């Protein structure tokens, strides 16, 4: 066995230029693969961080239809201008137990019940929406409804607030109200503790109050059919941007007629990530295939050059197995040498890249380095086996006659 490696090493030393070219080829492929893999890994983590706040949440509601869907009910106040609303349409209500079911889906990170009701002012007849939310929930509520970071005046509501509301900025301006003022909803007066601008969130309302208080004021408008532990909107925070579609499917299947409203930008964002990643891996594999083909060509040329030499060795008593083993050993040594050189080069290159610190840290290298080395060695075997078998098959007499 050691004779094989001795002879292989001698051959590589004798053909320094060809050996160097092969090693450089392998080193380049391995270094590029490791660098691309590392950059993709870092890029994916960075993209995930962005995608977490881009299109990983949605709201679910059921438009009011007659008859209502199983599990839903339609509650209509006396005034036709009032009622449960979502996305500009009248919506049905359902038990908050549905929200617990949504929260249990593996693709869902969090879910929260929400009441969105349109009121008509008894003073001047203008209509406004009241959003009743769980003040203790900052996950699903924060991304679909309103968050503490949306406050522009006053403060955000907390769990201890009673008889307090927050106003949406445009509504507050329209009604000439600000933090510290009072506002009447149904037959109750509330203190305005803050003014928020939640942007374009799907569960936006004019007036925000805690769920229990919203329930109370809404039931004033529904004296004969009050609601209890019910909601007309589910606020959903998805576990990952890549699970958005799965989460929406799961929620939609809960109730017939369920409508989902979300940002559509998650789709192009995720698909762009996928396209970039796929393209990078395709390029990497193409590069690896090119290196292997070049290595095969190099080994084949080497075997053709050594045709007479191999014939002499076979005339000396070398078996086909000895010939194959020596050619393969040389090819593997070149591949392994190139692989190790590529790993070193990749470590230097990655250190020179702009710092994108990741939680994974140095473990990225191990995950990619070992497979890259294994693939390099396998490539060496593949590159060497075809020329080796060809060399072994030739008759010594034919090889010795070759010029």
């Amino acid at each position, binding site marked *: 066995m050691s*004779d094989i490696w001795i002879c292989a090493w*001698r051959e590589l030393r004798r053909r320094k230029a060809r050996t160097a070219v092969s090693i450089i080829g392998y080193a380049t492929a391995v270094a590029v693969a490791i660098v691309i893999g590392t950059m993709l890994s870092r890029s994916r983590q960075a993209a995930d961080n962005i995608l977490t706040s881009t299109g990983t949440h949605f709201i679910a509601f059921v438009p009011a239809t007659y008859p209502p869907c199983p599990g839903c009910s339609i509650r209509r106040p006396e005034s036709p201008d009032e009622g449960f609303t979502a996305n500009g349409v009248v919506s049905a209500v359902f038990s908050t137990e549905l929200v617990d079911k949504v929260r249990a889906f593996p693709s869902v990170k969090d879910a929260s019940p929400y009441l969105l009701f349109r009121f008509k002012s008894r003073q001047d007849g203008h209509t406004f929406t009241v959003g009743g939310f769980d003040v203790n929930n900052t996950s699903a509520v924060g991304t679909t409804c309103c968050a503490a970071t949306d406050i522009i005046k006053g403060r955000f509501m907390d769990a201890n607030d009673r008889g307090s509301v927050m106003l949406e900025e445009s509504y507050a301006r329209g009604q000439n109200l600000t933090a510290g003022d009072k506002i009447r909803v149904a037959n109750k007066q509330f203190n305005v503790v803050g003014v928020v601008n939640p942007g374009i969130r799907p569960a936006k309302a004019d007036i925000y109050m805690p769920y229990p208080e919203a329930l109370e004021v809404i039931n004033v408008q529904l004296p004969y059919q009050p609601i209890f532990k019910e909601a007309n909107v589910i606020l959903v925070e998805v576990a990952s941007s890549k699970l958005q579609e799965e989460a929406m499917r799961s929620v939609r299947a809960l109730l017939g007629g369920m409508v989902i409203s979300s940002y559509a930008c998650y789709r192009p964002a995720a698909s762009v990530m996928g396209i970039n990643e796929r393209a990078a891996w395709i390029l990497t594999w193409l590069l690896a295939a090119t290196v292997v083909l070049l290595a095969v060509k190099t080994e084949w040329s080497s075997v053709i050059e050594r045709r007479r*030499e191999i014939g002499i060795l076979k*005339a000396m*008593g070398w*078996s086909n197995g*000895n010939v194959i083993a020596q050619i393969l050993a040389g090819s593997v040594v070149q591949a392994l040498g190139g692989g190790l050189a590529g790993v070193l080069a990749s470590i230097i290159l990655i250190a020179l890249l702009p710092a994108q610190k990741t939680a994974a840290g140095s473990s990225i290298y191990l995950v990619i380095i070992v497979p890259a080395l294994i693939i390099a060695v396998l490539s060496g075997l593949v590159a060497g086996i075809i020329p080796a078998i060809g060399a072994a098959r030739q008759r010594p007499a*034919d090889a010795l006659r070759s010029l």
Partner: protein
Amino acid sequence: MINNAVQPEVIMQCRGISKTFETRRGPIQILKDVSFNVRRGQITVISGRTGTGKSTLLGLLGGLDKPSTGEIWLDDQRIDNLSTARWSSIRRKKISILFQNFNLLPSWTAGENVEATMLHTGINRQQRNEKISALLAEFGLRERMEHLPCELSIGQQQMVALARAIVNEPAILLADEPSDDVDPQTAQELVNRLVLLGRNGTTIIVATHGNFPLDVADRCFLLEDGRIKACG
């Protein structure tokens, strides 16, 4: 020339050997129905003009090629139809070849060339080095062990080739035009060594077109027009 007083056993037999090569211009028959015996420990010379098939015949005897028809026997075993693996074993242990143009490996040193026949035989490196060193010292080439063939004279190359051929102590040595390309002094040294080998029991078959002295041969054959006959 032919010693009839001693009749050693037959070690090698050719029975009706023919060899035809396919060329672009059609088939060419080099050997036609060649039959002869080689006796153990004897020097057998096959002479003939250039192109009569001497090297081809030696190549068949050494298993480098297969005859188109006929049989070759070695020690009562037919060998012309053996597998490549069996032939490799025979060339490692029993039959060795000294080529007309030496066929040294150009990128291997003199020592490595001699070592080539000892690789993959289970002999460890130290033992190999000792044997090679001793043999080349015997040939006066100890100091040239690390030299490449291109750094040796023609005569030295021939001696390295001979060392390579005999380092494993083969039972049969096939020598193709051994004294052809060398100076008369080296040629004589070569002949002397072959005679010594013969005396020590090695069977030697020499192909020559006239430069090898026939008086040292135990048997002589003439190859003419592809056919063989005993020298008169």
